[in-house]
């Protein structure tokens, strides 16, 4: 069977790696895997999984762009681009009216502003610690003995949010354990955890000139509870991609496609 050629984007994050295959017609396939200790292996296996899903081979891929914290460890990529540019491109592709992207990934969170062409005009990132990131939620889920995937539903069901004052992941974990010991409702604590992250993200946005529409990307955007508290803070509905975790890889694939189009 004759296939059109495709381009690929690979996002090697701290917790997960994603690959997106793109043809001229749109997204062909994608894959998501845990990064583990070897970013190169994660990138390779993730790309292979996406290729398998699309029933394609590596020879069908014209250009590959790598992004994410492990982007420098993908030697077979033709180019490496930061996740900031890639999330902006990906979000703009999915929601062309996007002017702000909130991305909460495994290890970092960022807010990006962009213009009508999807180009980054400004950005801020969290500094130095995991507060306000997916990893923060993972640690809190462990402390609450709750599945990560259930956090969102439980948060939405809560009557109120318990205030979590510690921003440090380690201290916040102790605080959550104390709150459980004090007999507070688990759902309310979970809502409090979400609100704590949302406030931190919202404070970051104060350093930028935020404009609507706002698109929420990264694995944490799958969490309904997080979406709800952010929408309350931003006082607007957020665009949530069908698979928010692959938006960075999609942006990388779009840049790979640009490379193909510009190639002589």
């Amino acid at each position: 069977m004759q296939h059109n050629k495709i381009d690929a984007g690979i996002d090697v994050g701290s917790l997960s790696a994603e690959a997106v295959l793109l043809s001229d017609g749109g997204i062909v396939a994608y894959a998501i895997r845990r990064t583990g200790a070897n970013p190169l292996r994660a990138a390779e296996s993730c790309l292979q999984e996406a290729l398998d899903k699309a029933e394609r081979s590596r020879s069908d891929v014209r250009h590959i762009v790598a992004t994410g914290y492990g982007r420098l460890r993908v030697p077979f990529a033709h180019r490496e681009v930061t996740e900031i540019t890639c999330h902006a491109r990906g979000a703009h592709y999915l929601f062309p009216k996007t002017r702000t992207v909130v991305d909460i990934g495994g290890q970092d969170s960022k807010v990006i502003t962009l213009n009508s062409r999807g180009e980054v005009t400004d950005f801020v990132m969290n500094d130095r610690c995991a507060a306000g990131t997916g990893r923060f939620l993972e640690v809190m889920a462990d402390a609450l003995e709750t599945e990560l995937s259930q956090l969102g539903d439980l948060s939405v069901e809560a009557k109120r949010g318990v205030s979590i004052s510690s921003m440090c992941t380690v201290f916040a974990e102790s605080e959550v354990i104390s709150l459980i010991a004090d007999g507070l409702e688990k759902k309310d604590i979970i809502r409090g955890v979400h609100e704590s992250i949302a406030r931190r993200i919202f404070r970051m946005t104060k350093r930028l000139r935020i404009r609507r529409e706002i698109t929420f990307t990264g694995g944490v955007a799958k969490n309904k509870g997080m979406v709800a508290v952010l929408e309350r803070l931003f006082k607007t509905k957020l665009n949530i991609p069908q698979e928010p975790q692959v938006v960075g890889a999609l942006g990388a694939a779009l840049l790979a496609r640009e490379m193909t189009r510009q190639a002589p």
Partner: protein
Amino acid sequence: MATIGEEEKISHRALKRVVRNPLTYWSLAPLMEIVNLREQSRAYKIWVRYLIWMMRSACSKRKKVIWMSAFTPVELAYAVGAIPILPEIIAALVSYLGWAPPFISIGNSMMSTDVCSFYRCALGLAVEGYLPRPDLIVSSSHLCDGANKFFSYLSQRYACSHLLLDPPYDTGPEAHGYVTDQLRYLLAHMVDLMAVSLSEEELCKVVGLSNTMRKYMVRINRLRMAIPAPFPGSEGLSYLAGMGFCSPGSTWGVRFSAILARELEDRVAKKRGYLDNERYRVLWLHHIRPYYQNDIFQFLSSQGVSVCFEEANYMYWPPFDPTKPLDSLAHKILSNVWAGPLERRLGAVKEMVNNYRVNGVIHFSHWGCRQSCGGASIIGDFLKDQGVPYMILYGDGADPDNYFPGQTRTRLQAFVEMLG
């Protein structure tokens, strides 16, 4: 057999003896010429020779030693025939050499870790006895908020007098008279406390030398407007700024700036940029950069981004009138764009953005520096209004433990992508 702690003390004692022995600097000078300086520019060689001269003169006690804070006019020290030692500059050098962490640790045990790491490093150096002993300490209250407490503590420890210059926020005639009077008082006490002499003629001569250096610096800054950028900002923030802090009022400063101006004239005439492929030009805000081993500037260079100018070398004061030396120095202090109302600094930033035709601005926000952190966001808003891409790069100038290569690289790369 010595224990680990004792071994450390012994090696410290031996090292201190080497650092404070003038013979070290007598032997270092010819050695540096052979080993280190052969490939370097003439201006850089003068900087190294100046440092050697400074340490040799201070350690041999042939001249009185005055510890001064970075923005105190060093012309006062040269006028009374003393050697100005700026502990913050020494801390930057120590950081550059990769020796800062143990001294910062000592500083951390005595000061809040929120205080600027240059002071914490300098405190470690001072209490461990690595700096030449001061005969007097003079500091100024403008800009660096850690300076006065730092110097006040050291004056008690070294049992020497501490004179304080206190420039006001305002800049009108009343403020000018107030600062001129303080300078007069300061000089009189310096003469008194150190039992040295001062003639009006000498003071005028020193201010004249500072003025000549200023003239060359203005020329250097004009030459640096050339495209491609003839001189790297990383060096502008190291030895060029270092000479700007330490040498005004000395013949060293005049020689250094005259030679650098000539070197740059030559480079500009040959259209020789410091990068082969200058794609974008960036202005660096703040007086400092990270001095320890880091790859910030190498990364920018690899992307074709030149740091074509840095505000550390912005000439903010008017030419001196050598017949009115104290009046002139008061003008210099009061026209400092990093003190007083932020509007002045905004005006200077705008001027630099236009003159150097930059594509973007990086504001290095040094941990513990209230002056830089306080203004960084407002400057950002101002530049964004002008359509100039801007990034605050959070970091630490002296402490390598606060450097996160991956995060820094991502921010810089995203900024470069934004320029494109």
